[in-house]
């Protein structure tokens, strides 16, 4: 479903050029929950950005559903229709209600209003937030906001969800609930999830763990991640 081949990525810091990824190749299949682990500076966020088609400035090839991603317009179109995102700080739009936040990707894809409403209600119910649909993010707890963010990421039934430290800002009980929910939704919708994490609670739920160090994939297997 997602294939990365021979990815090299470097950043320029003043006169210095810092290589962030060295010849990274990987493949993510349908409905797989992949954990991306590694210490700070190992390149997992850089790799996550490339997996999420957020960054096109690299050497190598990215294929999404067999289609090579070659430009920002194509990447934008795929992000809009095939990808979902969950962020560490939730990143909900503060002037939108929970309902509107979840509805936003459907609006972007011009889904008709009745279907939109139905789909948003389904997702809010699935994450247990239907009763909070009218509330703005500032009236929700961190865990509730992350549930809304998860619903927003899943509302389009995307093929891939990119999650960047989704449990880092949550207490252990809430984190457990969010991780379970992610896994449940992933299996329900056949959605693949690539999640960058330091959190053992998260990685223990992953089907596969990719460990990174110094911009290289050092292991790729079903194993508990120790960050």
């Amino acid at each position, binding site marked *: 479903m997602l294939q990365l081949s021979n990815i090299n990525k470097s950043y320029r810091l003043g006169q210095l050029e810092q290589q962030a990824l060295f010849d990274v190749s990987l493949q993510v299949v349908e409905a797989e929950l992949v954990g991306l682990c590694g210490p700070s500076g190992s390149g997992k966020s850089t790799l996550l950005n490339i997996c*999420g088609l*957020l960054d096109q400035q690299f050497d190598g090839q990215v294929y999404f559903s067999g289609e090579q991603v070659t430009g920002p317009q194509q990447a934008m179109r795929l*992000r*809009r229709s095939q990808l979902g*995102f969950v962020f560490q700080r939730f*990143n909900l739009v503060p*002037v*939108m209600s929970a309902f509107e936040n979840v509805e936003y*990707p459907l609006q972007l894809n011009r889904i008709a209003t009745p279907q939109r409403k139905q789909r948003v209600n389904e997702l809010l119910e699935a994450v247990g937030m239907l009763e909070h649909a009218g509330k703005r993010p500032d009236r929700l707890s961190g865990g509730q906001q992350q549930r809304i963010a998860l619903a927003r990421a899943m509302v389009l039934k995307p093929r891939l969800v990119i999650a960047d430290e989704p449990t880092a800002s949550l207490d252990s009980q809430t984190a457990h609930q969010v991780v379970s929910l992610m896994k449940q939704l992933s299996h329900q919708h056949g959605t693949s999830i690539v999640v960058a994490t330091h959190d053992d609670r998260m990685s223990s739920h992953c089907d596969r763990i990719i460990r990174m160090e110094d911009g290289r994939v050092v292991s790729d297997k079903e194993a508990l991640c120790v960050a």
Partner: protein
Amino acid sequence: MRRLTQAWLNVQRNRRRSLMSVSIIAIAVFALLSAGGFGLYTYQSLAEASARESGHISVTMPGYFDSEEDYPLQNGIADSNVLIKSLLSHQQVKAVQPRVEFSGLASNGEKSAIFIGQGVQPNEFRQKGPFLDIVEGKLLDSYNPDEAPQVVLGKDLARNLKMQIGDWLTLLSTTSEGALNAYDFVVSGIVSTGVPEMDKRLLYIDLNAAQALLDSQRVSVVSMYFYDYQDVGPMLQTLSAPSAQQTPSLEFTPWWERAVFYDAVRNLYNRIFGVMGAVMALVVFVALFNTLSMSVTERTREIGTLAAMGTSPAEQLRGFVYEALVMALIGCVLGIIANGALSAGLLVADIQMPPPPGRTDGYPLQVYFSPILALWVTVSIAVICAGASAIAALKGVRKPITEALIYV
């Protein structure tokens, strides 16, 4: 509707900052509308004064205003009564006034002064309304050949010749045949036009007396007055059409072709208000650009999030433009309300402006409320705000998504 609602909510994110921007817009709109309203009032007042002075349309022999006469009434209109009757047959025409324009020497027996005279029908003063300030005495009575002819003098001419009401004055002029002729007149009134240069030279006598002085039955000009000045244009076309031409052919000159002062003031005010408008536009642009720039910077991470979800830069720009339009709309409404209040307030409060250069009388300060001007200003401000917001937002939406998402 939802976009507007979200724009309204975004405007409220930083209320103090938005309030400041809206205030600046409102003040700019108020200033533009007030200046424009004052200009419109001035234009209309001057237009009315010009039209009242010369008539909405002046009917003359061809070339009357372009060439000098060798002797009085050389280019005058003969059989003016027939022409007047013909012109009065148009239902849009309120009045038609024949006039004799002449000049000569006025003498009190000891001292003489050059005058510029107008021979008019006495009812012209009533028909034209209060355009003269009567300093002393009264205006002309109806002409009676058995009584002494009357003259109304400009106040400075009267002072120069030491004239009082009831004094006798001799007017000396050239007849239409080139001979000298003189008549004695009794001073019935002293007036001020508000223009010192005119007050030094101007006098009015009855039309028949003027014709007797010049020994001619012709008139210089026939002035047409309309009920509605909007009829001037169409009537001008009707009268100037070849099929409507009189014999001999006549020239029809609308008031605006003879309103030199009106044109000069209008050109001056248009330039002043144009510069003022440009400065106001710049102030609004800078204020909105500043507000939206700060807003964009604060919302960089949000911009990155929306971009990550596939929102195009154009869609994000549109959101910021809507915000600017909401602020522009609120500011414009407040500015228009303030202008309306000022306009109404000035109608009640009698505030006098000082006399303009070359005049002796002030005039009431009024500001017209013009819905068309308000619409134009609103549209212009909206365009400026939209432009400022688009430029301010461009920097944010062009930022790479990965940078925007980690922006602190």
